[in-house]
C-alpha cells in the first residue's frame, strides 16, 4: 500500500515536471490561463454587451475556474494512458494508478486557482458564509467524481479510438456554451433548458452560483439527490467500461 502511495507521488511529480518543464513560469501560466479567459470574457460581456447582473464578474470567474477544472481534468485524464505508453508496454502497472495520478495534479492546480479566486472575493469585498464553503466543496467534489469517472472510461477507449480527443475538444467547446458560465440561466428561454441540463456541469454551476450569489436561494434536497444518484450511476458505468477495456488495451498501445 505504501508502495502504491510512493508510486502515485512519483507519477504526480513526473506530470508536474513534464507539464511545466520544471519551471516556475510554466506553473504560473497554468494559473494565469483561467484568469486571462476571465479578463477577456468579462470585458466582452460586462463592458461591451453590458450584461446586467449583480456580481457578474465574480460569478463569471467562479464558473470559469470550475469549468477549467472540469475541462483540464477530463482532457488530461483522456490522455493519461497514452502519455504513459512507453512505460506501460514495458512494466506492469495497474492502469487506474496512472489515470488517478493524472487527475491529482489537476486537483492541485484547481486548489491553487481557488486561492486566486479567494483574492478576488476579498477584492470585491464579498464574504461567503461557512455554509457556502461547504456547498462549494461538495460540488467541487462532484466535478472531481465526473473527471475521475470519465478518465477511467475514456483513457482506455482513447487507446482504441484515436479520434476521441478531437471529439472531446468539440464537445467541451459545446459544453462551455451550453452551461450558465458567460450568461445566467434566466437569460435562456425555458424551452431550451433541457439542452443545458444534459450538460452535467450545468447543475453544479447553477447551484454553486445560487448558493454563493443568490441571497434568498432555497436549497431543495430532491433534485440534489437525483443528481447525486445519476452521478453515482454514471461513475459505476465508467468503472464497468474501465474493467472491460483495461485488460486488453495494452496490446494496442
Amino acid at each position, binding site marked *: 500500500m505504501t508502495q502504491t502511495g510512493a508510486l502515485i507521488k512519483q507519477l504526480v511529480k513526473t506530470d508536474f515536471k513534464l507539464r511545466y518543464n520544471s519551471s516556475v513560469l510554466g506553473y504560473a501560466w497554468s494559473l494565469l490561463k483561467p484568469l486571462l479567459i476571465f479578463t477577456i470574457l468579462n470585458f466582452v460581456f460586462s463592458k461591451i454587451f453590458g450584461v446586467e447582473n449583480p456580481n457578474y464578474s465574480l460569478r463569471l470567474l467562479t464558473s470559469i475556474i470550475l469549468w477549467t477544472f472540469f475541462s483540464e481534468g477530463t482532457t488530461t485524464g483522456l490522455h493519461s494512458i497514452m502519455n504513459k505508453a512507453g*512505460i506501460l508496454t514495458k512494466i506492469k502497472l495497474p492502469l487506474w494508478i496512472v489515470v488517478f495520478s493524472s487527475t491529482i495534479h489537476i486537483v492541485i492546480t484547481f486548489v491553487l486557482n481557488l486561492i486566486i479566486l479567494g483574492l478576488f472575493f476579498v477584492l470585491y469585498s464579498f464574504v461567503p458564509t461557512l455554509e457556502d464553503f461547504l456547498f462549494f466543496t461538495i460540488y467541487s467534489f462532484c466535478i472531481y467524481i465526473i473527471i475521475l469517472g470519465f478518465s477511467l472510461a475514456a483513457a482506455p477507449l482513447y487507446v482504441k479510438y484515436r*479520434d476521441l480527443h478531437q471529439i472531446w475538444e468539440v464537445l467541451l467547446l459545446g459544453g462551455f456554451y451550453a452551461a450558465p458560465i458567460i450568461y445566467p440561466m434566466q437569460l435562456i428561454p425555458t424551452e431550451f433548458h433541457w439542452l443545458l441540463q444534459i450538460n452535467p456541469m450545468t447543475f453544479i454551476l447553477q447551484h454553486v452560483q445560487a448558493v454563493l450569489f443568490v441571497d434568498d436561494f432555497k436549497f431543495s434536497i430532491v433534485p440534489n439527490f437525483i443528481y447525486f444518484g445519476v452521478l453515482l450511476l454514471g461513475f459505476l458505468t465508467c468503472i464497468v467500461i474501465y474493467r472491460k477495456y483495461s485488460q486488453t488495451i495494452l496490446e494496442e498501445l
Partner: protein
Amino acid sequence: MTQKIITVQNISKKFKIPHTKITSLRDEIFSLFSTKTYEEFHALDDISLEINKGEFIGIVGKNGSGKSTLLKILAGIYSPDSGKISINGSISPFLELGVGFNGDLTARENIFLNGTILGIEETELKNKFDDIISFAELEKFVDTKVKTFSSGMYARLAFSVAIHADADIYLMDEVLAVGDISFQKRCIETLHSYKNKGKTIILVSHDLSQIKQHASRAILFENGKIVADDSPERVLSTYVQHSQIFESEHQLLITNVAIHKKDSSDELSTGDDISISWSLEGAIPHEIDFIIAIQDDNGAVLFATNTIHDTVTADPSLTTYTFDLKKVPLRGGIYFAEISVIDKQFRKVASIPYAGPFSISPPRKTRGSVDILYNWNVT
C-alpha cells in the same frame, strides 16, 4: 528442495491482425456494415512450463516463435486467452530493449520513476542511485534528458535500473543485442552472480554462446510451441538442427560432448594436449564424416578441420568419438568447439554449436592471437 517460482499451465495467446486496422471512432462507424476480416496468429499455443527458483533459463527460437509474447505474459503486460499462470515472486522486466523511459525526463528523474514502478523504496533508491549510474557509465549525463541519449546509453541505463531492482525473477529480452561487448559481458556476469544468489533469470537471446555459457536450462520455441526443454547443450543442438535446413530426414543429435586435458582432469593451460569427445544419438547414416571447429567467446572460428580432407573414415557404430589436439597454442580465455556430422552426399545432418565451453588458464604475458610455448636461447 527445489521451489517452483513460475508455473504456466496450458496458456495460449492468439493475435487477431485485422486487414484494415480500426484506430478511430470514425472508422468504427464507417465499418459497421462491412465484414471485418483478419488473420489469426497463434503466438503461443498451449504452453506449459515450470520454472524453479534459482534457475537461469535461456530461451531461443526464431523471430515470431513466441518467446517475447511469453515474456510479456509473464510480466503481466499481455493476458493469455486461456490457461493459468502462477508466479510466486516479484519481477523485474527488461522487455524489448528497455524499461519504459520518458524522453523528456532526465536520467535522474527516469531512474526515480522507474525504480519506484519496479518497487524500490525511495530511501533504497537514493542509496542505489550512484550504483545505477556508475553501472550504466553515465556519470556525466545524470541531469541530461534521455531523449538526447544514444541507443547504447539508453539501453545501458535501462538495464542498470532493471537489475538494481531487488526482484526474485528477472525477465530479460534481448539484453545482449545492445551495448558494446564489454557492457554485454558485465550484464551477463551480473545475471550470473544473481543466479548464484538464488534469483531466477529468464533470458531471451540470439547469442547462443552466452546461453551455452550461463544458462542452466534452455527452452526452444517454434511456432508458438515449446519443442525442446532440456540442458542448453541438447537444446542448442536441436535448435541448430531445426534452423539450418537439413536436407536429411535423419534425426541425429550430438551428445555427451566433453573437452578435457588428455589423460588427466587438470585445468587446461596453453600448450596442453586437449581431447574432445562426443557421442551420436538417433538415426546414424551408414557413412559419416565430422567437421570440428574451435571458436573463441565471440564466435570467431580459430581453427577448423574435417575428416574428408584428412581422408579418415569414421565408423558410425562407435559409442564415443574423440578428437585429440596436440600442444594447443590457445591464449588464456574461454573457447567453444563446434562439431558437425556430414553424410556421404556432403549434407550436414547434425551440428552442435558452442559445445564446451572450455577455458584455458592462466593468461600469460605474451601478445598476439595465439600463445605458443617457447624458449629463449639468447643467454
